[in-house]
Protein backbone atom coordinates (compact mmCIF):
# COMPACT_ATOMS: atom_id res chain seq x y z
CA UNK A 1 0.00 0.00 0.00
CA UNK A 2 1.50 3.35 -0.99
CA UNK A 3 1.44 6.33 1.35
CA UNK A 4 -0.25 9.62 0.55
CA UNK A 5 1.72 11.70 -1.92
CA UNK A 6 3.11 15.01 -0.78
CA UNK A 7 1.71 17.95 -2.83
CA UNK A 8 3.79 18.86 -5.89
CA UNK A 9 6.45 21.46 -5.16
CA UNK A 10 6.60 20.58 -1.46
CA UNK A 11 9.45 18.21 -0.63
CA UNK A 12 8.58 15.40 1.73
CA UNK A 13 10.65 15.52 4.91
CA UNK A 14 10.49 11.72 4.95
CA UNK A 15 10.01 9.36 2.04
CA UNK A 16 9.89 5.61 2.69
CA UNK A 17 9.62 3.50 -0.44
CA UNK A 18 9.03 -0.27 -0.50
CA UNK A 19 10.77 -0.76 2.85
CA UNK A 20 11.35 -4.38 3.88
CA UNK A 21 13.27 -5.97 6.71
CA UNK A 22 13.68 -9.71 7.14
CA UNK A 23 15.37 -11.79 9.83
CA UNK A 24 15.91 -15.35 8.55
CA UNK A 25 12.32 -16.64 8.17
CA UNK A 26 10.64 -13.58 9.73
CA UNK A 27 9.51 -10.60 7.64
CA UNK A 28 9.42 -7.84 10.24
CA UNK A 29 8.53 -5.15 7.67
CA UNK A 30 7.00 -6.03 4.33
CA UNK A 31 6.99 -3.54 1.43
CA UNK A 32 5.95 -0.47 3.40
CA UNK A 33 5.77 2.93 1.64
CA UNK A 34 4.70 6.30 3.00
CA UNK A 35 5.71 9.95 3.08
CA UNK A 36 5.54 12.75 5.63
CA UNK A 37 5.16 16.37 4.60
CA UNK A 38 6.36 19.48 6.43
CA UNK A 39 4.12 20.50 9.35
CA UNK A 40 2.40 17.09 9.27
CA UNK A 41 2.09 14.75 12.26
CA UNK A 42 1.68 11.13 11.22
CA UNK A 43 0.76 8.42 13.72
CA UNK A 44 2.28 4.98 13.20
CA UNK A 45 -0.08 2.53 14.88
CA UNK A 46 -0.11 -1.19 15.35
CA UNK A 47 -0.05 -3.97 17.91
CA UNK A 48 3.15 -5.13 19.60
CA UNK A 49 5.44 -6.76 17.07
CA UNK A 50 3.78 -4.99 14.13
CA UNK A 51 7.11 -3.49 13.04
CA UNK A 52 6.78 0.12 14.24
CA UNK A 53 10.11 0.27 16.06
CA UNK A 54 11.79 -1.64 13.23
CA UNK A 55 10.63 1.08 10.83
CA UNK A 56 11.87 3.83 13.16
CA UNK A 57 15.24 2.10 13.58
CA UNK A 58 15.68 1.81 9.81
CA UNK A 59 14.86 5.50 9.38
CA UNK A 60 17.45 6.33 12.07
CA UNK A 61 20.11 4.27 10.29
CA UNK A 62 20.73 1.89 13.21
CA UNK A 63 19.11 -0.99 11.34
CA UNK A 64 19.79 -1.72 7.67
CA UNK A 65 16.69 -2.59 5.63
CA UNK A 66 16.60 -5.70 3.47
CA UNK A 67 15.05 -3.67 0.67
CA UNK A 68 13.66 -0.26 -0.15
CA UNK A 69 14.81 3.34 0.03
CA UNK A 70 14.49 5.87 2.87
CA UNK A 71 15.06 9.57 2.22
CA UNK A 72 15.15 12.34 4.81
CA UNK A 73 14.61 15.46 2.71
CA UNK A 74 16.66 14.74 -0.40
CA UNK A 75 19.22 12.56 1.38
CA UNK A 76 19.27 8.76 1.15
CA UNK A 77 19.83 7.32 4.64
CA UNK A 78 21.80 4.36 3.25
CA UNK A 79 24.14 6.39 1.05
CA UNK A 80 24.28 9.82 2.73
CA UNK A 81 23.77 8.78 6.33
CA UNK A 82 25.42 11.78 8.06
CA UNK A 83 23.68 14.39 5.90
CA UNK A 84 20.31 12.64 6.31
CA UNK A 85 20.55 12.17 10.08
CA UNK A 86 21.73 15.77 10.62
CA UNK A 87 18.17 16.75 9.58
CA UNK A 88 16.42 14.30 11.90
CA UNK A 89 16.19 13.56 15.60
CA UNK A 90 14.23 11.25 17.85
CA UNK A 91 12.96 10.52 21.34
CA UNK A 92 11.98 7.04 22.46
CA UNK A 93 10.77 5.69 25.75
CA UNK A 94 13.46 2.95 25.64
CA UNK A 95 16.35 5.31 24.77
CA UNK A 96 16.85 7.50 27.82
CA UNK A 97 19.88 9.79 27.85
CA UNK A 98 22.96 8.72 29.87
CA UNK A 99 22.01 8.92 33.53
CA UNK A 100 25.56 9.73 34.63
CA UNK A 101 25.55 13.16 32.93
CA UNK A 102 23.55 16.19 34.02
CA UNK A 103 20.76 17.59 31.84
CA UNK A 104 22.98 20.43 30.59
CA UNK A 105 25.96 18.11 29.97
CA UNK A 106 23.79 15.74 27.94
CA UNK A 107 22.40 18.59 25.85
CA UNK A 108 25.90 19.99 25.24
CA UNK A 109 27.24 16.54 24.31
CA UNK A 110 24.47 15.84 21.80
CA UNK A 111 24.55 19.44 20.57
CA UNK A 112 28.20 18.97 19.59
CA UNK A 113 27.44 15.62 17.98
CA UNK A 114 24.79 17.37 15.83
CA UNK A 115 27.19 20.33 15.24
CA UNK A 116 24.54 22.80 16.46
CA UNK A 117 25.51 26.47 15.93
CA UNK A 118 24.96 28.86 18.87
CA UNK A 119 24.71 25.84 21.14
CA UNK A 120 24.74 27.62 24.51
CA UNK A 121 21.78 29.83 23.57
CA UNK A 122 19.93 26.87 22.05
CA UNK A 123 20.38 24.84 25.25
CA UNK A 124 19.11 27.70 27.43
CA UNK A 125 16.06 28.14 25.18
CA UNK A 126 15.18 24.44 25.34
CA UNK A 127 15.74 24.28 29.11
CA UNK A 128 13.27 27.11 29.47
CA UNK A 129 10.80 25.72 26.93
CA UNK A 130 10.63 22.33 28.67
CA UNK A 131 10.76 23.78 32.21
CA UNK A 132 14.12 22.16 32.90
CA UNK A 133 16.10 25.22 34.04
CA UNK A 134 16.03 24.24 37.71
CA UNK A 135 17.07 20.68 36.80
CA UNK A 136 19.88 21.71 34.42
CA UNK A 137 22.66 20.61 36.77
CA UNK A 138 20.92 17.44 37.98
CA UNK A 139 22.10 14.05 36.75
CA UNK A 140 19.56 12.54 34.36
CA UNK A 141 19.62 9.21 36.19
CA UNK A 142 17.90 10.66 39.26
CA UNK A 143 15.12 12.43 37.34
CA UNK A 144 11.55 11.12 37.34
CA UNK A 145 10.41 9.39 34.15
CA UNK A 146 8.37 12.45 33.21
CA UNK A 147 11.38 14.72 33.63
CA UNK A 148 13.52 12.30 31.63
CA UNK A 149 10.95 12.42 28.83
CA UNK A 150 11.17 16.23 28.79
CA UNK A 151 14.98 16.02 28.62
CA UNK A 152 14.75 13.51 25.76
CA UNK A 153 12.39 15.87 23.89
CA UNK A 154 14.73 18.82 24.49
CA UNK A 155 17.58 16.74 23.06
CA UNK A 156 15.38 15.77 20.11
CA UNK A 157 14.85 19.44 19.25
CA UNK A 158 18.50 20.52 19.65
CA UNK A 159 19.20 20.56 15.92
CA UNK A 160 15.77 21.99 14.97
CA UNK A 161 15.08 18.80 12.99
CA UNK A 162 13.08 18.67 9.77
CA UNK A 163 11.99 15.16 10.77
CA UNK A 164 11.16 14.23 14.34
CA UNK A 165 10.60 10.59 15.28
CA UNK A 166 8.74 10.05 18.55
CA UNK A 167 8.36 6.47 19.77
CA UNK A 168 5.72 6.53 22.53
CA UNK A 169 6.95 9.88 23.86
CA UNK A 170 4.21 10.22 26.48
CA UNK A 171 4.16 6.60 27.66
CA UNK A 172 5.52 7.38 31.11
CA UNK A 173 3.84 10.74 31.70
CA UNK A 174 0.83 11.62 33.85
CA UNK A 175 -2.19 12.96 31.90
CA UNK A 176 -1.37 16.59 32.69
CA UNK A 177 2.29 16.33 31.66
CA UNK A 178 1.30 14.35 28.57
CA UNK A 179 -1.12 17.08 27.52
CA UNK A 180 1.60 19.72 27.91
CA UNK A 181 4.02 17.68 25.82
CA UNK A 182 1.36 17.12 23.13
CA UNK A 183 0.82 20.89 23.06
CA UNK A 184 4.56 21.49 22.59
CA UNK A 185 4.79 19.03 19.74
CA UNK A 186 1.62 20.22 18.04
CA UNK A 187 2.95 23.81 18.19
CA UNK A 188 6.27 22.65 16.80
CA UNK A 189 4.63 21.12 13.75
CA UNK A 190 2.34 24.12 13.19
CA UNK A 191 4.94 26.85 13.63
CA UNK A 192 8.05 25.20 12.24
CA UNK A 193 9.01 23.27 9.14
CA UNK A 194 9.07 19.97 10.94
CA UNK A 195 7.33 16.71 10.02
CA UNK A 196 6.67 14.25 12.83
CA UNK A 197 6.29 10.47 12.93
CA UNK A 198 4.59 9.46 16.20
CA UNK A 199 3.96 6.02 17.63
CA UNK A 200 1.58 5.56 20.52
CA UNK A 201 -0.84 3.03 21.98
CA UNK A 202 -2.99 5.84 23.33
CA UNK A 203 -5.70 6.26 20.67
CA UNK A 204 -7.18 9.32 22.37
CA UNK A 205 -3.79 11.00 22.04
CA UNK A 206 -3.42 9.94 18.41
CA UNK A 207 -6.86 11.34 17.53
CA UNK A 208 -5.97 14.61 19.23
CA UNK A 209 -2.52 15.10 17.75
CA UNK A 210 -2.13 13.33 14.41
CA UNK A 211 -3.13 14.65 11.00
CA UNK A 212 -2.92 11.18 9.51
CA UNK A 213 -2.48 7.66 10.85
CA UNK A 214 -0.88 4.55 9.34
CA UNK A 215 -2.08 1.15 10.58
CA UNK A 216 0.57 -1.53 10.60
CA UNK A 217 0.08 -5.22 11.32
CA UNK A 218 2.65 -8.00 11.03
CA UNK A 219 4.97 -5.76 9.08
CA UNK A 220 2.40 -4.65 6.49
CA UNK A 221 0.75 -1.27 6.12
CA UNK A 222 -2.97 -2.09 6.19
CA UNK A 223 -4.65 1.29 5.87
CA UNK A 224 -4.19 4.97 6.46
CA UNK A 225 -6.25 8.10 6.73
CA UNK A 226 -7.52 10.91 8.92
CA UNK A 227 -7.85 9.68 12.52
CA UNK A 228 -11.17 11.51 12.95
CA UNK A 229 -12.81 10.10 9.82
CA UNK A 230 -11.20 6.66 9.55
CA UNK A 231 -13.31 4.95 12.29
CA UNK A 232 -16.61 6.02 10.67
CA UNK A 233 -15.39 4.95 7.23
CA UNK A 234 -14.86 1.45 8.66
CA UNK A 235 -18.08 1.25 10.65
CA UNK A 236 -16.67 1.57 14.17
CA UNK A 237 -17.17 4.24 16.81
CA UNK A 238 -13.61 5.36 17.42
CA UNK A 239 -9.95 4.77 16.67
CA UNK A 240 -9.52 2.36 19.58
CA UNK A 241 -12.22 0.04 18.24
CA UNK A 242 -10.65 0.20 14.80
CA UNK A 243 -7.25 -0.62 16.29
CA UNK A 244 -8.62 -3.65 18.15
CA UNK A 245 -10.44 -4.90 15.08
CA UNK A 246 -7.39 -4.59 12.85
CA UNK A 247 -5.07 -6.12 15.45
CA UNK A 248 -7.30 -9.20 15.84
CA UNK A 249 -8.19 -9.63 12.20
CA UNK A 250 -6.14 -12.29 10.40
CA UNK A 251 -3.89 -10.68 7.81
CA UNK A 252 -5.08 -12.97 4.97
CA UNK A 253 -8.69 -11.88 5.51
CA UNK A 254 -7.64 -8.26 5.52
CA UNK A 255 -5.66 -8.64 2.29
CA UNK A 256 -8.53 -10.31 0.44
CA UNK A 257 -11.11 -7.77 1.61
CA UNK A 258 -12.11 -4.99 -0.85
CA UNK A 259 -10.65 -1.56 -0.06
Amino acid sequence: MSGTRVPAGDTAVLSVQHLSKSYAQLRAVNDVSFQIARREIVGLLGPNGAGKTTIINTILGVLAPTGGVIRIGIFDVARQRAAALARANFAAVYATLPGNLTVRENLRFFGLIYSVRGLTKRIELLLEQFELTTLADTKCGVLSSGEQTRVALAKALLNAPELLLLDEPTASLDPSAAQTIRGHIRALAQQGDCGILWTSHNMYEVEEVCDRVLFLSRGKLLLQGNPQRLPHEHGVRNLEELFIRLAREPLMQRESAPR
Partner: protein
Amino acid sequence: MNVRPIAGVVLRQCYLIRGSPVRVLPMFAWVAIDIVLWGFITRYLDSVSAAGINFVSTLLGAVLLWDLFTRIMQGITTAFLEDVWSRNFLNLFATPLRISEYVTGLVLTSLATSTAGLITMLLLATLLFGLSYFALGVLLLPLLLVLTCFGIALGILASAMVLRLGPASEWLVWPLPALLSPFACVFYPLSVLPHWMQAVAYALPPAYVFEGMRAVLAGRAPATAPLVYAVILALAYIAAAAYGFSHVYRYAVRSGLLARYSAESVS
Protein backbone atom coordinates in the same frame (compact mmCIF):
# COMPACT_ATOMS: atom_id res chain seq x y z
CA MET B 1 35.79 14.20 9.58
CA ASN B 2 34.08 17.00 11.49
CA VAL B 3 35.85 18.37 14.59
CA ARG B 4 32.72 19.21 16.62
CA PRO B 5 31.36 15.65 16.99
CA ILE B 6 34.87 14.47 17.96
CA ALA B 7 34.97 17.26 20.58
CA GLY B 8 31.57 16.02 21.78
CA VAL B 9 32.85 12.47 22.34
CA VAL B 10 35.89 13.81 24.23
CA LEU B 11 33.78 16.27 26.25
CA ARG B 12 31.44 13.49 27.38
CA GLN B 13 34.42 11.59 28.82
CA CYS B 14 35.68 14.80 30.48
CA TYR B 15 32.27 15.26 32.12
CA LEU B 16 32.33 11.66 33.36
CA ILE B 17 35.85 12.00 34.80
CA ARG B 18 35.12 15.41 36.35
CA GLY B 19 31.98 14.17 38.02
CA SER B 20 33.37 10.95 39.48
CA PRO B 21 36.41 10.40 41.76
CA VAL B 22 35.96 6.67 41.07
CA ARG B 23 37.03 7.34 37.49
CA VAL B 24 39.89 9.70 38.43
CA LEU B 25 41.57 7.44 40.98
CA PRO B 26 42.46 4.50 38.65
CA MET B 27 44.19 6.92 36.25
CA PHE B 28 46.89 7.42 38.89
CA ALA B 29 46.49 4.77 41.59
CA TRP B 30 47.20 1.51 39.72
CA VAL B 31 50.22 2.84 37.86
CA ALA B 32 51.57 4.35 41.10
CA ILE B 33 51.16 1.01 42.90
CA ASP B 34 52.95 -0.79 40.05
CA ILE B 35 55.88 1.62 40.12
CA VAL B 36 56.23 1.49 43.89
CA LEU B 37 56.00 -2.33 43.98
CA TRP B 38 58.46 -2.88 41.14
CA GLY B 39 60.66 -0.06 42.39
CA PHE B 40 61.28 -1.88 45.69
CA ILE B 41 61.70 -5.24 43.95
CA THR B 42 64.35 -3.81 41.61
CA ARG B 43 66.08 -1.97 44.48
CA TYR B 44 66.27 -5.27 46.39
CA LEU B 45 67.57 -7.14 43.31
CA ASP B 46 70.20 -4.45 42.80
CA SER B 47 71.38 -4.95 46.39
CA VAL B 48 71.74 -8.76 46.19
CA SER B 49 72.95 -9.22 42.60
CA ALA B 50 76.42 -8.98 41.17
CA ALA B 51 77.64 -5.55 40.25
CA GLY B 52 77.02 -4.37 36.68
CA ILE B 53 73.36 -5.26 36.30
CA ASN B 54 71.02 -2.30 36.77
CA PHE B 55 67.61 -3.77 37.53
CA VAL B 56 66.05 -0.36 38.11
CA SER B 57 66.61 0.61 34.50
CA THR B 58 65.76 -2.72 32.90
CA LEU B 59 62.87 -4.01 34.99
CA LEU B 60 61.33 -0.79 36.27
CA GLY B 61 61.73 0.83 32.84
CA ALA B 62 59.98 -2.15 31.26
CA VAL B 63 57.13 -1.98 33.78
CA LEU B 64 56.64 1.70 33.05
CA LEU B 65 56.50 1.18 29.28
CA TRP B 66 54.19 -1.84 29.56
CA ASP B 67 51.86 0.08 31.90
CA LEU B 68 51.67 2.90 29.35
CA PHE B 69 50.63 0.43 26.63
CA THR B 70 48.03 -1.16 28.93
CA ARG B 71 46.61 2.24 29.96
CA ILE B 72 46.17 3.33 26.36
CA MET B 73 44.37 0.10 25.43
CA GLN B 74 42.15 0.21 28.51
CA GLY B 75 41.51 3.95 28.09
CA ILE B 76 39.87 3.34 24.71
CA THR B 77 37.97 0.28 25.91
CA THR B 78 36.70 2.02 29.05
CA ALA B 79 35.53 5.07 27.09
CA PHE B 80 33.66 2.73 24.72
CA LEU B 81 32.20 0.74 27.62
CA GLU B 82 30.81 3.95 29.13
CA ASP B 83 28.38 3.97 26.19
CA VAL B 84 27.61 0.27 26.72
CA TRP B 85 27.01 0.69 30.46
CA SER B 86 24.76 3.74 29.98
CA ARG B 87 22.87 2.03 27.10
CA ASN B 88 23.67 4.97 24.88
CA PHE B 89 24.19 3.23 21.51
CA LEU B 90 20.81 4.12 20.04
CA ASN B 91 21.13 7.79 21.05
CA LEU B 92 24.70 7.89 19.77
CA PHE B 93 24.51 6.01 16.48
CA ALA B 94 21.17 7.52 15.39
CA THR B 95 23.05 10.83 14.97
CA PRO B 96 25.24 12.15 12.12
CA LEU B 97 28.29 10.94 14.08
CA ARG B 98 30.61 8.96 11.80
CA ILE B 99 32.40 5.85 13.08
CA SER B 100 35.76 7.48 12.31
CA GLU B 101 34.78 10.50 14.44
CA TYR B 102 33.59 8.29 17.29
CA VAL B 103 36.76 6.18 17.34
CA THR B 104 38.97 9.29 17.04
CA GLY B 105 37.18 10.75 20.09
CA LEU B 106 37.79 7.56 22.08
CA VAL B 107 41.49 7.54 21.09
CA LEU B 108 42.01 11.20 22.04
CA THR B 109 40.35 10.57 25.41
CA SER B 110 42.63 7.63 26.05
CA LEU B 111 45.76 9.56 25.04
CA ALA B 112 44.86 12.32 27.51
CA THR B 113 44.19 9.97 30.45
CA SER B 114 47.25 7.81 29.63
CA THR B 115 49.49 10.88 29.52
CA ALA B 116 48.34 11.73 33.04
CA GLY B 117 49.28 8.19 34.09
CA LEU B 118 52.64 8.38 32.29
CA ILE B 119 53.56 11.63 34.05
CA THR B 120 52.66 10.05 37.42
CA MET B 121 54.82 7.01 36.66
CA LEU B 122 57.78 9.09 35.45
CA LEU B 123 57.68 11.32 38.53
CA LEU B 124 57.50 8.39 40.96
CA ALA B 125 60.12 6.29 39.16
CA THR B 126 62.53 9.22 38.88
CA LEU B 127 62.06 10.78 42.31
CA LEU B 128 61.73 7.61 44.42
CA PHE B 129 63.93 5.11 42.58
CA GLY B 130 66.31 7.20 40.47
CA LEU B 131 65.16 5.83 37.12
CA SER B 132 66.63 7.95 34.35
CA TYR B 133 64.96 7.76 30.97
CA PHE B 134 67.64 10.01 29.56
CA ALA B 135 69.76 6.84 29.41
CA LEU B 136 67.62 5.79 26.44
CA GLY B 137 68.19 9.12 24.68
CA VAL B 138 66.19 9.81 21.51
CA LEU B 139 65.35 6.11 21.32
CA LEU B 140 62.64 6.78 23.91
CA LEU B 141 60.46 8.53 21.32
CA PRO B 142 60.07 5.62 18.86
CA LEU B 143 59.61 3.23 21.79
CA LEU B 144 56.73 5.33 23.12
CA LEU B 145 55.33 5.75 19.60
CA VAL B 146 55.25 1.99 18.94
CA LEU B 147 53.60 1.18 22.27
CA THR B 148 51.08 4.01 21.89
CA CYS B 149 50.10 2.86 18.38
CA PHE B 150 49.80 -0.79 19.41
CA GLY B 151 47.78 0.23 22.50
CA ILE B 152 45.40 2.16 20.23
CA ALA B 153 45.08 -0.83 17.89
CA LEU B 154 44.33 -3.25 20.73
CA GLY B 155 41.84 -0.80 22.31
CA ILE B 156 39.89 -0.49 19.05
CA LEU B 157 39.97 -4.27 18.56
CA ALA B 158 38.73 -4.85 22.13
CA SER B 159 35.86 -2.37 21.56
CA ALA B 160 34.93 -4.21 18.35
CA MET B 161 34.87 -7.48 20.31
CA VAL B 162 32.46 -6.01 22.88
CA LEU B 163 30.24 -4.63 20.12
CA ARG B 164 30.15 -8.00 18.34
CA LEU B 165 29.94 -10.38 21.33
CA GLY B 166 27.81 -8.29 23.68
CA PRO B 167 28.32 -6.42 26.96
CA ALA B 168 29.36 -9.53 28.94
CA SER B 169 32.42 -9.94 26.71
CA GLU B 170 34.14 -7.09 28.55
CA TRP B 171 35.48 -9.84 30.81
CA LEU B 172 37.29 -11.26 27.78
CA VAL B 173 38.97 -8.01 26.78
CA TRP B 174 40.43 -6.87 30.12
CA PRO B 175 43.02 -9.71 30.23
CA LEU B 176 44.19 -9.13 26.62
CA PRO B 177 47.42 -7.29 27.62
CA ALA B 178 48.25 -10.03 30.14
CA LEU B 179 47.67 -12.61 27.39
CA LEU B 180 50.16 -10.83 25.13
CA SER B 181 52.79 -10.10 27.79
CA PRO B 182 54.66 -13.45 27.61
CA PHE B 183 55.14 -12.89 23.86
CA ALA B 184 56.05 -9.21 24.24
CA CYS B 185 59.24 -10.14 26.16
CA VAL B 186 58.71 -7.36 28.69
CA PHE B 187 61.12 -8.75 31.30
CA TYR B 188 63.34 -11.20 29.38
CA PRO B 189 65.11 -11.37 26.02
CA LEU B 190 63.29 -12.82 23.05
CA SER B 191 66.01 -15.49 22.71
CA VAL B 192 64.80 -17.35 25.85
CA LEU B 193 61.45 -18.16 24.22
CA PRO B 194 60.81 -21.42 22.37
CA HIS B 195 60.72 -21.10 18.57
CA TRP B 196 56.94 -21.01 18.20
CA MET B 197 56.67 -18.24 20.81
CA GLN B 198 59.44 -16.30 19.08
CA ALA B 199 57.45 -16.49 15.83
CA VAL B 200 54.46 -14.94 17.61
CA ALA B 201 56.69 -12.34 19.30
CA TYR B 202 58.07 -11.18 15.93
CA ALA B 203 54.50 -10.35 14.89
CA LEU B 204 53.99 -8.12 17.95
CA PRO B 205 55.44 -4.58 17.94
CA PRO B 206 56.08 -4.45 21.75
CA ALA B 207 58.67 -7.26 21.46
CA TYR B 208 60.87 -4.94 19.33
CA VAL B 209 60.43 -2.16 21.88
CA PHE B 210 61.66 -4.18 24.83
CA GLU B 211 64.50 -5.76 22.84
CA GLY B 212 65.59 -2.26 21.78
CA MET B 213 65.36 -0.92 25.32
CA ARG B 214 67.49 -3.75 26.74
CA ALA B 215 70.10 -3.36 23.98
CA VAL B 216 70.61 0.33 24.74
CA LEU B 217 70.72 -0.17 28.50
CA ALA B 218 73.31 -2.91 27.97
CA GLY B 219 75.47 -0.36 26.14
CA ARG B 220 74.89 -1.70 22.61
CA ALA B 221 74.01 0.50 19.65
CA PRO B 222 70.27 0.65 18.98
CA ALA B 223 69.20 -1.20 15.84
CA THR B 224 67.18 1.20 13.69
CA ALA B 225 65.65 -1.23 11.19
CA PRO B 226 63.69 -3.34 13.73
CA LEU B 227 62.22 -0.20 15.30
CA VAL B 228 61.16 1.21 11.93
CA TYR B 229 59.58 -2.17 11.18
CA ALA B 230 57.83 -2.07 14.59
CA VAL B 231 56.39 1.40 13.85
CA ILE B 232 55.08 0.21 10.46
CA LEU B 233 53.70 -2.98 12.05
CA ALA B 234 51.92 -0.99 14.80
CA LEU B 235 50.37 1.38 12.23
CA ALA B 236 49.23 -1.64 10.21
CA TYR B 237 47.58 -3.03 13.36
CA ILE B 238 45.71 0.28 13.83
CA ALA B 239 44.46 0.14 10.23
CA ALA B 240 43.39 -3.50 10.67
CA ALA B 241 41.65 -2.78 13.99
CA ALA B 242 39.81 0.25 12.53
CA TYR B 243 38.68 -1.89 9.58
CA GLY B 244 37.60 -4.60 12.04
CA PHE B 245 35.55 -2.13 14.12
CA SER B 246 33.92 -0.71 11.00
CA HIS B 247 33.14 -4.24 9.74
CA VAL B 248 31.58 -5.23 13.09
CA TYR B 249 29.55 -2.00 13.16
CA ARG B 250 28.15 -2.69 9.67
CA TYR B 251 27.28 -6.23 10.75
CA ALA B 252 25.56 -4.86 13.88
CA VAL B 253 23.47 -2.47 11.75
CA ARG B 254 22.58 -5.20 9.26
CA SER B 255 21.68 -7.87 11.83
CA GLY B 256 19.80 -5.63 14.27
CA LEU B 257 22.42 -6.13 16.98
CA LEU B 258 23.01 -2.38 17.33
CA ALA B 259 19.31 -1.55 17.74
CA ARG B 260 18.83 -4.39 20.25
CA TYR B 261 21.80 -3.19 22.32
CA SER B 262 19.51 -0.43 23.59
CA ALA B 263 15.99 -1.51 22.81
CA GLU B 264 15.68 -5.12 23.95
CA SER B 265 11.91 -4.74 24.20
CA VAL B 266 11.08 -3.52 20.72
CA SER B 267 7.39 -3.43 19.85
